């Protein structure tokens, strides 16, 4: 009856995606939450842009990037949260031991979580980008091919951070859950979401450039303000992201081993 035990099975990945799809489908509060915060923030930044836009001068021009910056930040943040929440759902439901004694491999589990982060992000962000067009005339999709580069790079970073956070929760229990919600905010000032890197003190700038999203946000400003697509920045971000993803995957596996060593998997809780 039981057949394949291949080292990688798209079927097992599909099983995990289906499990989370069933969950999303069964819970309208979960679906609403995906749209609620992005929509609230989009309106706030949109009205701020309208307000500041009434003043003539350089400031008005600069703040025209706010909506784009917010939406890109939200991809980064929601991508990571989408990954981590899907993971946390397994912890909250005390289902993790069931998964860990099944043939599901860590790689398959992580791939399923990345797919779910895209699904959750899409459910939240697509309606919000439409609202941005309707209310503020800002067409996020007009960023075109650049948007695909921004999107891919930000998602890669979000998955790397998501793997690290999930590993921490697996190793240290739900007491580490708050990190899953807050860790990304550590990057908010350093990745220069709303201002150029040159604003930072010189000694922080190398640290900032080591964070893949920094190049994305700089690239976004180059596109929106100067109408220039900086492929060099996207390649830099992509290269960094490969390193970050490797580090994220390594940390997830290492923390899983730690969880097996500490017995955390049979003591699910705080």
């Amino acid at each position, binding site marked *: 009856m039981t057949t394949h035990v291949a080292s990688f099975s798209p079927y097992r990945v599909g099983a*995990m995606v289906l*499990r989370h799809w069933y969950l999303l489908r069964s819970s309208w509060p979960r679906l609403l939450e995906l749209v609620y915060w992005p929509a609230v923030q989009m309106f706030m930044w949109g009205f701020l842009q309208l307000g500041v836009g009434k003043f003539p001068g350089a400031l008005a021009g600069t703040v025209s990037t706010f909506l784009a910056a917010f939406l890109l930040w939200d991809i980064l943040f929601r991508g990571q949260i989408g990954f981590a929440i899907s993971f946390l759902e397994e912890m909250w439901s005390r289902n993790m031991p069931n998964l860990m*004694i099944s043939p599901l491999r860590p790689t398959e589990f992580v791939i399923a979580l990345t797919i779910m982060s895209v699904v959750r992000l899409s459910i939240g962000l697509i309606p919000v980008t439409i609202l941005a067009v309707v209310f503020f005339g800002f067409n996020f999709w007009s960023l075109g091919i650049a948007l695909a580069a921004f999107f891919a790079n930000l998602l890669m970073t979000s998955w790397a951070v998501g793997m690290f956070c999930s590993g921490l929760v697996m190793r240290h229990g739900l007491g580490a859950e708050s990190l899953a919600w807050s860790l990304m905010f550590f990057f908010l000032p350093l990745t220069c979401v709303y201002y150029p890197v040159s604003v930072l003190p010189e000694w922080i700038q190398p640290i900032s450039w080591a964070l893949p999203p920094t190049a994305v946000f700089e690239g976004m400003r180059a596109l929106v303000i100067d109408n220039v697509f900086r492929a060099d920045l996207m390649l830099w971000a992509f290269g960094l992201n490969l390193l970050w993803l490797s580090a994220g995957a390594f940390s997830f596996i290492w923390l899983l081993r730690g969880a*097996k060593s500490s017995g955390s*998997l049979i003591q*699910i809780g705080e």
Partner: protein
Amino acid sequence: MQQTAAMTVAAIQTEKLAKRYGDSIAVDGVSFAVTAGSITGLLGGNGAGKTTTIGMTTGLVSPSGGRVLVFGADMAREPYKVLHRINLESPYVDLPHRLTVRQNLTVFGMLYGVTDRREQIARLASELDLTEFLDRPAGKLSAGQKTRVALAKALINDPDLLVLDEPTASLDPDTADWIRGHLERYRARKSATILLASHNMAEVERLCDRVLMMKKGQIVDDGSPPQLLSRYGRQNLEEVFLDVARDRRKAKEPAS
């Protein structure tokens, strides 16, 4: 008790298996073999090391020393060779509450690569009296129904090794008896190996071919229920358990 050719093969083999958590010793160098097709009970008080032993047997916990082989595979190094042949039911583990019983079984059927999933779910639902609950969220079931669903999940892949950690804890006597009957039928049908940790002496006495008595991380006695009763000169396993737990009476003949 079943005597089949399969019984000559060890389903589980532990060799000086040990687990430390910091300064605390949970399992202290236990060695035992579980014959394929048998039902073996792990009996011991709280903190005796039963759940940790089960954790290491299923690959959820890595040993600090020694090793555990399941169907010949070292569970710390190569668990994926055999995980498709194993399943677990434990009251400390749950299924996603918002998913219906059918959805849960579908997901785990896919994870275990069960090809005739619909038929398997229908069969398990029929055998475990779950048919009318199949489309109900797992979280909205009674304790007895949840236990039956957990057992259905544990049987979804027709495991060769079924690991049960207190399978009838907090169930009423009727439901508990019903579950035990089902486990007996499953073993008879599949010639499966069952490793059972329990505090319920009547359950152990009824189901197990062999009992490993654990205390402070060690196996302090080992034998079939009749052998243990005879060794301690007792009428039931509860009295034997108390003798071992309280060091009240030594066995007349030590376990070999």
